[in-house]
C-alpha cells in the first residue's frame, strides 16, 4: 500500500490561515509546533508536516478501515533530506518529501525500503490526463493546480 499527498502552496496560502488562534494546536503535536515556530520558513514547515500526515493517513485508513479526522494522533519526525517517519498508535509509515517553491509532495510507504521503488507523476493544470484512473495509481492526490499519482 502506498500513500501520497500534494499541497499547492499558492492555494494553501489563500485557503488556510494556520496562524488563526488554536489552529496549530488542533493538528500538530507539541514537538511539531516547536518545529514550526522555530523554522526559518514556517509556512513551508506547516505544509510539509501536513503532507506527511495526510500521505501516512491514506495508507493507515485503508489498512485499518478506520476513517476519522485525527491529525494530531499522527506524529511526525523529520530526518535528513526530507525523509520522515509518521507514527500512529503502534504503526509507522515512512515518507519522503519534495519541497518546491510552488508545491510540496510527499510519498509514503509502510516500509522504508519501499520508498525507493515508488514511481510518481505530478501534473499541473491544464495538463491533467483525463484517463489517469486507467493507469491504476496506488494513490491519488489532488490540490489546486496539481494532480499527483504514485505507482
Amino acid at each position, binding site marked *: 500500500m502506498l500513500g501520497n499527498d500534494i499541497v499547492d502552496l499558492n492555494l494553501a496560502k489563500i*485557503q488556510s490561515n*494556520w496562524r*488563526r488562534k*488554536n489552529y496549530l494546536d488542533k493538528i500538530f503535536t507539541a514537538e511539531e509546533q516547536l518545529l514550526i515556530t522555530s523554522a526559518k520558513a514556517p509556512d513551508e514547515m506547516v505544509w510539509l508536516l501536513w503532507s506527511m500526515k495526510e500521505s501516512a493517513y491514506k495508507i493507515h485508513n485503508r489498512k485499518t478501515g478506520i476513517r476519522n479526522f485525527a491529525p494530531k494522533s499522527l506524529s511526525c519526525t523529520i530526518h535528513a533530506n526530507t525523509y520522515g517517519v509518521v507514527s500512529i498508535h503502534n504503526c509507522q509509515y515512512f515518507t519522503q518529501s519534495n519541497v518546491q517553491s510552488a508545491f510540496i509532495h510527499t510519498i509514503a510507504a509502510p516500509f522504508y525500503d519501499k520508498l525507493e521503488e515508488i514511481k510518481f507523476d505530478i501534473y499541473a493544470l491544464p495538463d491533467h490526463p483525463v484517463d489517469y484512473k486507467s493507469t491504476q495509481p496506488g494513490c491519488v492526490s489532488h490540490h489546486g493546480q496539481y494532480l499527483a499519482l504514485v505507482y
Partner: protein
Amino acid sequence: MNKEEIIEALKTIIEPYSEEVTALAHIDENTDFINDLKINSANLVDIVLDVEEKFNIEIDNDSMAKMLTVKATVEIIAQKLEAHAGQ
C-alpha cells in the same frame, strides 16, 4: 437549540469552505464534508474552530475525529451544549 437550528447554523459555517453549489443546497444529515462537499481537509480544522466559536463549546480531539459528516457534527454539538447547560 434543536437539531434543525443546529443544522441551519452549521450550514452557514460550512458554506465558505465548499464550492459544491448543488451539494450545499441539499445539505442534510447524511452530507459528508469530504466526499459530498469536497472540503479540503485542512479546512476541516477551520470548521471545528468556527463551531467552537459559534456555539461557545470546546471540541476535544476524540470528538473532532468524528466530525466528517453533518450528522456526527450535529450530535457532538448537541452533546456539548447539553453538558454546558448542565454545568
